[in-house]
């Protein structure tokens, strides 16, 4: 599949939506690019590393291996309340993509079993590491911030647990420690801090692994290679190459958060291969 649509233009025209058109109609004010960038938190991300992820929903079989790998890697507790940073949805094939990405269709679910099923597709969702994250803007203490490579990070020592960031997150990507996490000592990964009670946590793109040059746990665990991770600013990285090849989309583009997690579909792989 070869596409002539430039990825950036595609994201801009679809993503910024109505606002973009209005801004365009007021062109004399300044360049559209400039106006759109006004409320972006960080502009430094255009240079240097910009970590991003691509998920191929056509390949995803909904096996939840990424969920389990993530839980084990990041010390995510099962008790006193089961938590997870990645959630996978079973979606109906007949639902148009636009509907899926903007409002919840009632026939999707997270508690499915026996995947993959015919007539269904699977959508893994997690923190999308927005370039303009509402959570960072609204956090009163700076406990959540844009860290190295554009990753939205948490400082668990600064979090006062007001949950403003959870209310602000359009992706429901954040979970709160409603009780003190109980993890068996032998299961604790020393590379990742165990969070205290009363703070918010979320996907970190496995920053502790990325720093060592390893892939995030979910990417490594995916049995069908549906997840890709790399530097979006490096034209030779795997993610850049995939995004050049396929039409991509992000979730909830109308929120103008500019996610760094992209979704593509390379066709229904598991159905074709049996």
């Amino acid at each position, binding site marked *: 599949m070869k596409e002539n649509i430039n990825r950036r233009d595609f994201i801009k025209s679809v993503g910024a939506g109505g606002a973009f058109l209005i801004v365009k109609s007021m062109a004399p004010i300044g360049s559209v690019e400039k106006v759109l960038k006004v409320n972006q938190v960080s502009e430094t991300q255009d240079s240097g590393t910009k970590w991003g992820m691509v998920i191929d929903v056509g390949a995803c079989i909904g096996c939840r291996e990424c969920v389990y790998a993530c839980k084990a890697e990041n010390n995510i507790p099962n008790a006193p309340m089961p938590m997870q940073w990645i959630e996978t949805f079973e979606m109906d094939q007949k639902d148009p993509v636009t509907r899926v990405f903007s409002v*919840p269709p009632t026939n999707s679910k997270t508690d499915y079993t026996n995947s993959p099923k015919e007539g269904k597709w699977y959508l893994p969702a997690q923190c999308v590491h927005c370039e303009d994250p509402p959570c960072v803007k609204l956090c009163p203490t700076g406990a959540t911030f844009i860290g190295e490579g554009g990753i939205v990070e948490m400082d668990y020592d600064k979090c006062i647990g007001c*949950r403003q960031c959870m209310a602000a997150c359009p992706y*429901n990507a954040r979970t709160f*420690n409603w009780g003190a996490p109980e993890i068996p000592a032998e299961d604790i990964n020393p590379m990742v801090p165990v969070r205290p*009670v009363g703070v918010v946590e979320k996907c970190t793109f496995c920053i502790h692994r990325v720093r060592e040059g390893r892939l995030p746990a979910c990417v490594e665990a995916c049995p069908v290679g549906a997840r890709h991770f790399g530097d979006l600013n490096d034209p030779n990285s795997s993610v850049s190459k995939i995004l050049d090849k396929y039409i991509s989309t992000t*979730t909830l583009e109308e929120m103008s958060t500019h996610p760094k997690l992209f979704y593509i579909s390379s066709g229904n792989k598991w159905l074709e291969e049996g």
Partner: protein
Amino acid sequence: MESKVDKILESMETTGKGFYSVLGIFGLIVLWGAYAWYTQFTVGMQTTGLNNTVMWGLYIATFMFMIGVSHAGIIISTSIRVGKIEKLKPLARIAEAMTIAGLAMAVLSVVADIGRPDRIFVLFFNLRVTSPLAWDLIILSLYFAFSAFYLLISTKHDLHSLADRFNVRGSLYKFVGGIQNAITPKEDKAYKNMLNTVSAIILPFPLLDSGMVVAFIFSLLGARPAFNVPYIGPYFLLTALVTGIAGIVIVSFILTKVYDWEEIIPDESITELAKYLKVGIPLVLYFIFNQHFTFQYVGKLSTLVVSNMLLLQGPHALLFWEMIIVGFLLPEILLFTPNIKKDRLFLASIMTTLGLWVNCILIVVPALTFPNLPFNWGTYSPTWVEWSIIAGVTALGVLIFTVLTKLVPIVELD
């Protein structure tokens, strides 16, 4: 005139059965609330009905409500100073004491809501200015500081005359009187000017508070379409002001009954407030109607579901219609009965106050139950811990007010 002053002072000097039973009952509720809060703090917020989808509930709703209670002082002082409604003068000090108690209750409700109250001081060292919560902290601190300062300087003459009357408390009054003399000018004219200036500074705080920073906590959430609408500010301001008015009616009615103060707080003073409520309640209904009319007519799913949840289906709908009928429509009819007496106004105010508190809950919860991505819809029902903490916070507010009535003449002496 002398007998009026004597009567007020008598209420401060004598502590009867009623006073001790208030202290006892509300003290126990405060202790119970403290126990619930201790449970929540040690076990974590899993003791509440909150969850990752509906992460705000009773606490935040009560915070909004209590901010409204705190506007009582400004409503009355503005009516007297700007509106020249002299009838309301006996209620001024009561309303100012309500401001202090209301703000204390509001702050405690928020402290109950945050997961790490032990880290509250992190806020002071790491305040991020782009956060509406930071604006709230700043504006509410200023509001409290100015209100307390006003109460301090405006009681100068009253406390001065009290210093010699009391044995034990006399030294306290002398000490406070010393501070008051130090910070206020001696000449009467300059002193009056100072009072006017401070109350003029406090005047815009309802607008800054309910109308802006409290509303911004919700309206700046782009992720929640039912919050993310521009009228939230004026809507919150209106409901807060009506809460304040209904609150003054309730408190001054109870004080009049308890102390037998029919001459000190005349009936006309209290029934004057019926006019405010008569206008306020229909305006609240107007906002609610416009909101649901827009959501229903446009039919955009993200807001339509929130609207339907209130109008049509589920436990919220029952509560919503109860609120509309019992909280707003019935009191409005009561207020329009001819020859309104303060008893009827009191009843109407209680109903309205309950209605407005339910309204705060119904603003917060349904808008959060509906995630953007295909997660399951959230549900929320408060647990005993939440009810107990809210009861404890309210009881503490009552205690603060009751103690204030014993320390400061709650009706101005001259």
